[in-house]
């Protein structure tokens, strides 16, 4: 099973490191990162594997939401199926 973590916000040092650390802490494996900085805006999409996640996924979403709040970012952590359902037949 995979989850998509999208991060949007003002660019600063260490955003990827902070997000990756939370992933590593809970056994979430990063499969792909696509990231750009447009002017001062940082935007990233991380595709992760959550098969070996060590806490319930809903709690992992909370952790990411906390990280977002602490760093003034917008982070959406969503199960992959929502995108497959909406965009693939």
């Amino acid at each position: 099973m995979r989850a998509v973590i999208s991060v949007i916000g003002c660019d600063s040092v260490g955003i990827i490191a902070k997000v990756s650390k939370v992933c590593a802490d809970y056994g979430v494996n990063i499969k792909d990162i696509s990231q750009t900085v447009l002017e001062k805006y940082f935007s990233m999409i991380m595709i992760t594997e959550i098969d070996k996640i060590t806490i319930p996924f809903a709690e992992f979403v909370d952790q990411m939401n906390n990280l977002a709040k602490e760093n003034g970012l917008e982070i959406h952590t969503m199960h992959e199926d929502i995108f497959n359902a909406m965009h693939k037949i």
Partner: protein
Amino acid sequence: MLDRNDIFETINMIREESLDVRTITMGISLFDCQSDNEDRLCSKIYDKIMFHAKDLVKTGQDIEKEYGIPIIHKRVSVTPVSLMCGNISYDGAVKIAKTLDNAAAELGVNFIGGYSALVQKGFSNGSRTLLSAIPEALATTERLCSSVNVASTKAGINMDAVAEMGRIIKKTADLTADRSAIGCAKLVVFANVPEDNPFMAGAFHGMGEPETVINVGVSGPGVVVSALRRAGNSCNLTEIAEIIKKTAFKITRMGQLVAMLASERLGVPFGIVDLSLAPTPAIGDSVAYILESIGLEKCGCPGTTAALAMLNDAVKKGGVMASSHVGGLSGAFIPVSEDAGMIEAAKCGALTLEKLEAMTAVCSVGLDMIAIPGDTSEAVISGIIADEIAIGVVNTKTTAVRLIPFGKAGDMITFGGLLGEAPVIPVSQYSPATMIARGGRIPAPIQSLKN
């Protein structure tokens, strides 16, 4: 592989365009709760609802969090309570209402539907008891919703019931006059009522439904508005219909996913997805704005019925392929008080009761959440109901009436929350009292020789 643009499109729909799943509604059969002892009946009803729906809210919240999809309401619908009322007194019927309300409060659902009766051909004892108890039931509860089906294409229109509903709506308005007649916002009169509708106030758990079932209603007028605005003014109407279809497909696929997840986690069979465009008072989340994006100066101006017909059809065409089972009210809703654009249009006089009636001939449901003057007579209310119901009966579609007689023409009535606020719309001062007093049944319409 997931496409970056697809991911941002979905996130943007949820963040900026008010995309949500409007409701997960669990239908629960109460047939096995039957008893001629009122206390035992009520305790059985309470226990059964609590047993089946105990995890409904939690499950909805979990899905919401894991998939990032807002799920606005978790609700419960039950077997039409009139079927339980055969041997029950007036007080017993009110007691059932309070029992349902208590169960809803305990579960944390915002509405419970099914305080309902089907009387298209006539009244059973249970229906009579229930109808008489509706005003008090709605006045003494918070979360209870009531609906009465007074007509069908196969049975015709029960005009005795239409007359009775005029009286019941007035009485409900009187009993809840201290709260802007809010009781009337939870009471719908139907023709051709669907038995699997997840939306309130008209939801109930039909006779042919399984023991329990999960029905889901989707929403997303804001997403359609944004898609149309992005397309600009150079598209012709064929292209507009295509955009609406594709958007409806995506919205409905999300609803289908949520329905399957909820069904699996709760161990309750999946019933249907209701292909709906249900507005909210939030700015941007408006069906009227969709119509205005198509190119109307104000919703209600000439051309509105045609634009709405296309919208309604495109929503269904896009949605049908996205879901394995479709049902409920499926189509664009036009509840005046719950739609910022409709409120504006009604306020400035662009949208009148007569135009709304015409619009309901081509879209889902009917004269919904419309405030009319508080001094409107019972007979005029019955006349408005009869007209709207006739549209449904003759066109083999569901129509409904949810009127709130309160205040004076031009006043703004505030209900709060998703029920929104409505300007009081003037109604004709000429009376159909003699016709309404005749009673009887309008025979079922012929189904051939269509002109």
